[in-house]
C-alpha cells in the first residue's frame, strides 16, 4: 500500500479550512496526478502525506503506518522512505548542487558519513547519474544560486531520485521548466515509479501534462475531491467545472489549447555516462 486517507480534514491555525473529507488511497507503484485551481488544497494534501503537518480530523496511513502514532525515531525512519519535490526547492543559496543532491540520503547515511561528505562528496557518481537523467550533470559542482528556477527544480527532483524513496510527493515539480524539459522531468519521475515500484503522486498545474503521463487523475476543488478518474474518462465539461472559479481557459503548458490525449507512451530511463 502506498497510502490511505480517510475522511481527512485540515483547518489551519488561522481558522482557514484547507481540506475537508478527503478519502483517497493508492496502491504501491501507482501514479496519480492531482489537478485543480490554485488554493484547492493540493500542496496541503502533499504536506499531509509527507508528514509535515498533522491532520485536524480523519486518518492518515502512509507506507503501512500511521505517522502520528510513531515514536520520534520511527517517524524519522518513515520519512527517509518518503521523498518530496518542492515547487521552489528550499536549497541554501551557497550550497553546491552535488551537496544538495547528496542531502537526499541524510536520513539513511550514518552521521559521520554525512559530515565527511561536506569535506569531500561521498558519492559523486551517484549524484551525477541522477542529475544526468535530468540533463543537468554539467552543473554538478556549481553553486545553487547560479542556477535558474527551472534548473533548481531539476536539482530538487534529482535529490528525491537519489534518495530512492518508496513514495514520491511532487508539488508542481515542473512549473518553472519549458515544455520539453518538463516532459523529460515527468518522464523520469514516472520511470522511477514504474521501474522501482514507487508510488508517485504529483500535483500539476498544467492539465495536459497530467493527462499525458498519469493513469489516474484526482481533481481537487475547495479542499474536496471533485473526481478521481482515469484520463480517458475525463471530459472537457468536468475540467471546465473544476477550474470554473479560476479562468475560462484551462491551464496548459505554454498556454496551448488542450487536446485530450491517448495515454500510455513508452518511457525509457536516460542514463548518460557520468565518468
Amino acid at each position, binding site marked *: 500500500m502506498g497510502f490511505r486517507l480517510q475522511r481527512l480534514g485540515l483547518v489551519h491555525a488561522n481558522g482557514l479550512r484547507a481540506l475537508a473529507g478527503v478519502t483517497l488511497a493508492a496502491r504501491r507503484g501507482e501514479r496519480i496526478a492531482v489537478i485543480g485551481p490554485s488554493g484547492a488544497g493540493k500542496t496541503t494534501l502533499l504536506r499531509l502525506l509527507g508528514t509535515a503537518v498533522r491532520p485536524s480530523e480523519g486518518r492518515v496511513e502512509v507506507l503501512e503506518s500511521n505517522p502520528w502514532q510513531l515514536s520520534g525515531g520511527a517517524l524519522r525512519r518513515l520519512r527517509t522512505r518518503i521523498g518530496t519535490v518542492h515547487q521552489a526547492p528550499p536549497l541554501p543559496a551557497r550550497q*553546491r548542487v*552535488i551537496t544538495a543532491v547528496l542531502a537526499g540520503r541524510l536520513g539513511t547515511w550514518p552521521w559521520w558519513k554525512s559530515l565527511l561528505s561536506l569535506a569531500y562528496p561521498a558519492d*559523486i557518481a551517484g549524484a*551525477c547519474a541522477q542529475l*544526468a537523467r535530468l540533463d543537468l*550533470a*554539467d552543473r*554538478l*559542482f556549481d553553486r545553487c544560486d547560479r542556477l535558474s528556477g527551472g534548473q533548481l527544480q531539476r536539482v530538487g527532483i534529482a535529490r528525491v531520485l537519489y534518495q530512492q524513496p518508496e513514495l514520491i510527493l511532487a508539488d508542481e515539480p515542473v512549473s518553472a521548466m519549458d515544455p520539453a524539459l518538463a516532459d523529460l522531468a515527468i518522464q523520469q519521475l514516472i520511470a522511477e515509479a514504474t521501474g522501482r515500484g514507487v508510488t508517485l503522486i504529483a500535483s500539476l498545474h498544467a492539465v495536459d501534462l497530467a493527462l499525458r503521463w498519469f493513469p489516474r487523475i484526482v481533481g481537487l476543488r475547495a479542499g474536496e475531491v471533485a473526481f478521481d478518474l482515469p484520463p480517458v474518462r475525463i471530459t472537457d465539461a468536468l475540467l471546465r467545472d473544476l477550474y470554473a472559479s479560476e479562468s475560462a481557459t484551462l491551464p496548459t503548458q505554454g498556454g496551448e489549447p488542450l487536446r485530450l490525449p491517448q495515454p500510455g507512451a513508452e518511457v525509457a530511463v536516460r542514463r548518460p*555516462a557520468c565518468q
Partner: protein
Amino acid sequence: MNPQSLPDRDPDALRRATLLLAGMLVLWPLLVVSQFRPAALFEPGNLAAMGHFLKGFLPPEVSVGFLGLLVKAMLETLAIATAGVTLALLVAAPLAFAMTHSLSVSRIGPGPGRLRGEVLRGAVRLLLVVLRGIPELVWALVFVRALGLGPAAGVLALAITYGGMLGKVYAEILESGDTRPARALRQKRRSPPRSGRVAALLYGLVPGAVQELVSYTIYRWECAIRASVVMGFVGAGGLGQLMDQAMKMLNGGEAATILIVFLLLVLLADAISAWLRRQLA
C-alpha cells in the same frame, strides 16, 4: 563543459585541502604562542585558588560600611565618566572644527592658504589618530604614574582618548550632512563681508547635525562609564579600583557585590542613554 568528460573528482577538493592545511599551519603556532593549555585550568593550585575565591562569592558582602564605600565608588565612577566626556568635548570641538573640509576657504580654489590648510588638516588628522589609537587604559596607566592613584588619571585618560574619537566622528558627521549652507556662507564675497569659519560652523553646519552630534556624545558617555570602571583596575579610582583591591585580596564576597553593582550600573547607563537618545529622535 563537455558532457562527455563529466568530472569524477571534486574540482574544489585541492583548494579546500590547501585552505585547511594553511589554516592548521597558522593555528598551530598561534596556539603555541598564546600558551593554549586548557589543562592549566585543572591544576590543583589554580583550582584551589579559584575555588576559594568563588566560594567567597556567596554570600556577597553587604555590611553597611562596605556598602557606603561602594556608593562612594559608584558616584566617583559616574563623575569620572561625566567629567572625562566633558573635557573630551573641549578637546574634540576645536579639532573637529579644524578638520572639517567644507569650512575651509582654500578648498574653493588654489590660493596662498591652500597648502597651509592641507598641512594643518593633515597634522590634526595625525593627532586624532594618536589620541584615539592609544587605548584609554594605557593613558590611565601613564597618568597614574604621573599624578598618583586616583580619579584624576581616569578623567584625563578619558579626555584624551574620547577627545580623539569624538573629534573624528564629529568631523564625519559635519561633513556627511548638508554642507551647502556653510559653503555658501564662506563663499559670499560681497558685503556683508565673507562669514568667518566660526559663523559658518554655527549657522551653516551645526543646526543640521546637532541631533546626531548630541546622540553620539550620549552614546560615548555610556561607553565612558564602562571604561571608567575598567580604568579603575590600573588605579584610576571608582568601582574598578575597589574591584581590583577585592581581587588582589581574594575577597570573593566583596568582588561579587561590586560585580553586581557594576552590572546594574551598566544596565542603568544603557537605559538612560537609550531614553535620552529616544527623546532626541
